[in-house]
């Protein structure tokens, strides 16, 4: 559903937070400038939001600064999308204990998920969420933990008006406008927000605020900012399916060139909102009476990720990078009917050595003499 556009004055932002709480969302998360980055934190009030904060992102570099005005969402993104909220970085899946007879008893180690509203979700984050849902919620074995956490979320999107130099969502078709997947969507103007609801429960929250309709001038200004945000993007990936082109270049010399720069540190996969690889392990108690079975984020850049039967499939860095890129942009199409990249640019900014997926793809697609 796309509702009538309403207008939320800036002074009523706290009323929105209170309305979310009144609707049962015990925890309201939003962007907070902390440790030099935009991070998702629990909000007490709208004053916690990053008023006047701007981000400057380059390959391998992220800096916050201050701009003019009262805007709270005049930045592109922080190091994390919604991923940590739905796909936990580390969790205990089950516990196994010995009973009195020495038998094994398995217990679900799940915890209650607090109903949570998230303010400030970007179009790329929503696109990534949809991709992860295809993976985690796929029948016939949907992941119950993921499903429960996803169901506990209420999403307040904010359309992008200030893309970073690392953004390229316009080329992947995932932004800067949040099209679907949100409960509420906001467009930030100087004096307030144009609000639309995407779900019934979103409409129910807005109803409590008794907002006026947005004026045609306000909606026009909001639309113009989103369109400008698309035009301002300086990076791009080819929007076509790159599968065959990349598979035809598996021995391209550029993989070696990237391999010499890449640290195989896994930062790109950790900040990528669609990467879903994990590792499972058991942590037995010292007395051997009990063990916790953990699931935690893993990365195709680690050695053990390609370990099977006493050998490493991908020992060299170039093979690990190639695995990541060809999964993300090639075999992802076969698995999930689209590329695994939503153009958020996090892998570019948060790569410690500034490896740029758009530049690497461009280099790989160049014809070679070899």
């Amino acid at each position, binding site marked *: 559903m796309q509702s009538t556009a309403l207008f939320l004055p800036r002074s009523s932002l706290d009323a929105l937070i209170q309305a979310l709480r009144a609707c049962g969302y015990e925890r309201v998360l939003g962007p907070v400038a*902390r*440790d*030099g*980055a935009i*991070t998702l934190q629990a909000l007490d009030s709208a004053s916690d939001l990053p008023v006047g904060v701007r981000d400057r992102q380059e390959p*391998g*570099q*992220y*800096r916050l600064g201050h701009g003019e005005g009262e805007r709270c969402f005049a930045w592109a993104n922080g*190091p*994390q999308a919604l991923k*940590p909220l739905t796909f936990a*970085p*580390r969790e205990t899946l089950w516990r196994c204990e010995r009973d009195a007879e020495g038998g094994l008893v398995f217990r679900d180690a799940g915890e209650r998920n607090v109903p949570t509203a998230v303010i400030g979700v970007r179009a790329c984050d929503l696109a990534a969420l949809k991709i992860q849902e295809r993976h985690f919620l796929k029948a016939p074995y949907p992941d119950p933990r993921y499903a429960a956490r996803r169901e506990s979320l209420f999403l307040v999107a904010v359309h992008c008006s200030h893309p970073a130099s690392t953004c390229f969502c316009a080329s992947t078709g995932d932004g800067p406008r949040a099209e679907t997947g949100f409960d509420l969507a906001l467009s930030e103007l100087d004096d307030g927000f144009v609000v639309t609801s995407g779900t019934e429960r979103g409409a129910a929250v807005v109803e409590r605020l008794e907002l006026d309709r947005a004026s045609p001038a306000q909606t026009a200004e909001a639309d113009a900012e989103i369109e400008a945000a698309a035009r301002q993007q300086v990076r791009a990936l080819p929007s076509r399916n790159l599968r065959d082109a990349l598979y035809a270049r598996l021995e391209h010399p550029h993989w070696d060139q990237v391999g*010499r*720069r*890449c*640290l*195989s*540190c*896994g*930062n790109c996969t*950790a*900040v990528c909102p669609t990467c879903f690889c994990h590792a499972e*392990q058991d*942590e*037995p*108690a*010292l*007395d*051997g009476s009990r063990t916790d079975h953990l699931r*935690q*984020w*893993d*990365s195709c850049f*680690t*050695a*053990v990720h390609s*370990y099977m039967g*006493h*050998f*490493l499939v991908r*020992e060299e*860095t170039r093979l690990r990078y190639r695995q990541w890129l060809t999964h993300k942009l090639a075999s992802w199409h076969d698995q999930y009917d689209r590329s695994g990249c939503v153009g958020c640019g996090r892998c570019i*900014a*948060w*790569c*410690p*050595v*500034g490896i740029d997926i758009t530049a690497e793809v461009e280099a790989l697609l160049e014809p070679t003499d070899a």
Partner: protein
Amino acid sequence: MATPRFTVTDALDRLNERPQPRPRIAVHKFSSCDGCQLAFINAGEALLQLAELVDIVHFAEAGPMDPEAAVDLAFVEGSISTPEEAERIQTVRANTRFLVSIGACATSGGLQALRNFNADGAAGWTEAVYAQPEFIHSLDTATPVAEHVKVDLELWGCPVNARQVFQALRQLLFGVAPVVDRDKLCVECKRQQHVCVLVAKGEPCMGPVTHTGCGALCPAFGRDCYACFGPAENPNTAALARRFEGLGLLPEAVARRFHLINSHAPAFRIEWLDWQERS
């Protein structure tokens, strides 16, 4: 890891097939600050549990003294830095079925291995530091245990992480080969959702080449990692060093990042030499 770094020996199998008596354990100290032995002493309740599972026959810092006792499992802390230690480590090896070196000193030579880079040997330093250097009998080098005897398992870190030590111990008692996570620190740092200090602050963080295990302690407090757990698997020290130069570090400062607690570890030694030559 094409060939497993550590293998479970027949000795280990025997260790776990022995129902009686309980496995005998020793904790030995060589050149070190004793901090890694604290992994046991600070464990509190876990140490009491351990005492019910095994017999701790030698652990000078905690009390039991029987350095020559034959044991099933010996933990060794410290580097080999005196002639006496070079002999004693042979005895320790001969008297144990399974040997685990714990901490930076035992696994890489530790901080004291900085003397290995002194072309004139250690004598000049000994004379500079001690009032009566004739009582000091040091080797010119401080070296890891594995350069002297066969080591079955290495647990890195300055200090070693108690959780890792007890996990490895538990796995040995179960009769399985302990698996040590040798990923980069970044993998754990990102799981904990710390903001990257290299990217967001321009700090010369060693995390991207450093062996995980500490729990990303320094980045949790906004500090750059200084590699106290030594090199991770597949460490691209050259690329990280170039990045440090890009952050504005002079070649000598880049070299120093690799020349601290684990300076003797080959991956760090090579990078130090390279940047030392440029400075």
